[in-house]
């Protein structure tokens, strides 16, 4: 009675296709309190991984389409994008997982290890405009440094979860996590602005001002690799930058047909203590040009070092520090899932008898799901409508329509097949864009191969 699991996953943070598919072990990663329908699973390390990516405001096609003027398209994109637009890459790789339900118990225990990459870069609208167009046409406009916001992390996650029915109505679950950060970059709280002001009463045409700059970028796990040539393998197993977190989730059975679920994932933080490097720039500065003093001409007298004085002034008033090694803490991107589903059609558990406890397992489920992830500039949310159908004992599919920051035409499809103990599934969203991914604002793909046993139970 075991499950051999070999899973390759690549997806954006929202896994709307797997959420609530309770005959797949992956459902437990999205809701530790999922009402799973199997009794044991075991996973092995696997061979490959891929990534999902999203861009909320521009596609590859928008810029690189054949013909026309690429510079005009860049300018159009520059004008259209705003500071909340972002680029995301997320990848997750199950290295090992195992789960089991103790005999004569209702608990389900699971543990495992996975590797995760998550990166987000907000479009630095103001700074990009300044770099692309310069300040000449923008006298009086403030260019904010707070547009500069990026975070990236690569980590290994060790986890242990428990799921348990506590009543006829409720099933609860929790998953405890130990994060081992391999690499982290975090620059999410930058402040200040640059502005060029006309100064009719001033000494020169303009006053160029850097106002209240406070820029900070924290890194961990970089210097030892980049400067010392250390292997990241050790950090991949267990680094000095550890964190803890927890997932919690629940399923509520309102009646035989209506079910509600919810989960909070990655309530946790990573404490960066080793292999640190911080970069900081703080201060204010005003430039009005170089003031010539016309000192009396004396033989042998050195010229006034205006340029050096200017450089010194800037360094004094806008000091840039690149050797700091200060500890810092990063919060994991908290994810919220919630769903409500309505079951109808044939009861896959068969007619009520003494072996199935009278539980209904409907052939079809329909409902709504909500997803939200906490990002540096706020929540990114998605709403999904789904239709989930078990065609027979072998095939199950789930069709989704999702509205999210990336698309309003996101159709997704999951197909799962159970051949005796062997399960294979594939799930992809933004299917309408797959014929030409260049036009997609986001794409994610999840697929896996696994052996699953005892799939006919409906665990409340």
């Amino acid at each position, binding site marked *: 009675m075991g499950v051999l699991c070999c899973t390759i996953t690549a997806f954006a943070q929202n896994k709307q296709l797997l959420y609530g598919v309770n005959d797949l072990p992956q459902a437990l990663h999205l809701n530790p309190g999922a009402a799973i329908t199997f009794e044991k699973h075991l996973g092995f390390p696997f061979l490959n991984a891929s990534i999902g990516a999203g861009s909320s405001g521009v596609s590859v096609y928008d810029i690189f389409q054949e013909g026309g003027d690429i510079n005009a398209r860049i300018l159009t994109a520059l004008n259209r994008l705003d500071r909340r637009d972002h680029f995301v890459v997320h990848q997750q790789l199950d290295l090992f997982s195992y789960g089991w339900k103790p005999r004569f118990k209702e608990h389900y225990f699971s543990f495992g290890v996975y590797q995760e990459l998550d990166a987000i870069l907000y479009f630095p609208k103001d700074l990009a405009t300044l770099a692309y167009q310069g300040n*000449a046409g923008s006298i009086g406009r403030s260019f904010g440094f707070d547009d500069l916001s990026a975070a990236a992390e690569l980590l290994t996650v060790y986890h242990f979860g428990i799921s348990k029915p506590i009543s006829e109505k409720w099933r609860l679950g929790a998953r405890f996590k130990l994060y081992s950060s391999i690499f982290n970059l975090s620059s999410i709280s930058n402040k200040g602005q640059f502005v060029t002001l006309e100064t009719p009463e001033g*000494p020169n045409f*303009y006053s160029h001002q850097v106002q209240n700059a406070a820029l900070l970028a924290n890194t961990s796990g970089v210097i030892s690799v980049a400067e010392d040539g250390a292997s990241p393998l050790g950090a991949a197993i267990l680094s000095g930058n550890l964190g803890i977190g927890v997932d919690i989730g629940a399923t509520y059975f309102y009646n035989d047909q209506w079910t509600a679920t919810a989960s909070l994932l990655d309530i946790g933080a990573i404490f960066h203590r080793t292999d640190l490097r911080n970069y900081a720039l703080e201060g204010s500065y005003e430039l009005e040009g170089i003031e010539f003093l016309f000192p009396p001409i004396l033989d042998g007298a050195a010229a006034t070092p205006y340029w050096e004085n200017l450089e010194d002034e800037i360094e004094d008033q806008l000091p840039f520090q690149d050797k700091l090694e200060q500890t810092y803490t990063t919060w994991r991107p908290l994810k919220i899932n919630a769903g409500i589903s309505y079951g109808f059609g044939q009861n896959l558990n068969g007619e009520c008898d003494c072996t199935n406890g009278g539980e209904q397992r409907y052939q079809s489920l329909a409902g709504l799901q909500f997803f939200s992830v906490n990002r540096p500039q706020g929540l990114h949310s998605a709403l999904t409508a789904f239709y989930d159908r078990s*065609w027979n004992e072998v*095939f199950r599919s789930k069709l989704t329509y999702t509205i999210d920051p990336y698309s309003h035409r996101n159709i997704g499809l999951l*197909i799962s097949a159970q051949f005796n103990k062997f399960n294979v599934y594939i799930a992809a969203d933004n299917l309408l864009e797959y014929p030409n991914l260049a036009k997609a604002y986001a794409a994610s793909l999840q*697929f896996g191969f696994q052996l699953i046993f005892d799939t006919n139970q409906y665990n409340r």
Partner: protein
Amino acid sequence: MKITLPLRLAFLCGLAIGLVSCVSDVDFDQTDQIVFTPEVDLDLTFFELTTANFEDTVSGLPIPVVRDTTRLEFLDDDFIRDNLTQIELLLRYDNSFSQDFEHKTLFLDENNQVQFEIAFEVAAAIDGQTETTLYQQTIIDPELAAIRNAIKMLIEIRMLPDGQPIAGRLRHQSKAIYSLEVTDL
């Protein structure tokens, strides 16, 4: 259990969706055509000269010429040298002296050899009213190449005597719009 052909096909289609997708109608070679053309508008120099600048405080004799120099290290920056395509200079004088002045800006190399020169006359005040002189020049190659060879900028102000007492203020402001064309991404 019988697995029907349509279901098998559906499953294979599902796999195909994930595994067979394409990127088309795009041309990444266009990166060669990407050109950033920022225009940076920056103050350059400013000063105010008074009677004291044109009279020797000890002898009381007039000082016909004053000059000062600064290095412009940014002219030696590779990014600037590679991408600067135009400089649009704007110089302004507000003169309350009754004398005209001759303005010279000399761009010098390390050996103080003149690479490029700008010269114009600054008009005298009329009836005691401050006179404004604006001087604008757009510099492109080959003159721009000469400026790229420079590293210092010297400003020379020569008073043109008119027999009147030397009294007044000469205010100078200058700025430049640097046009860049960045193609090497």
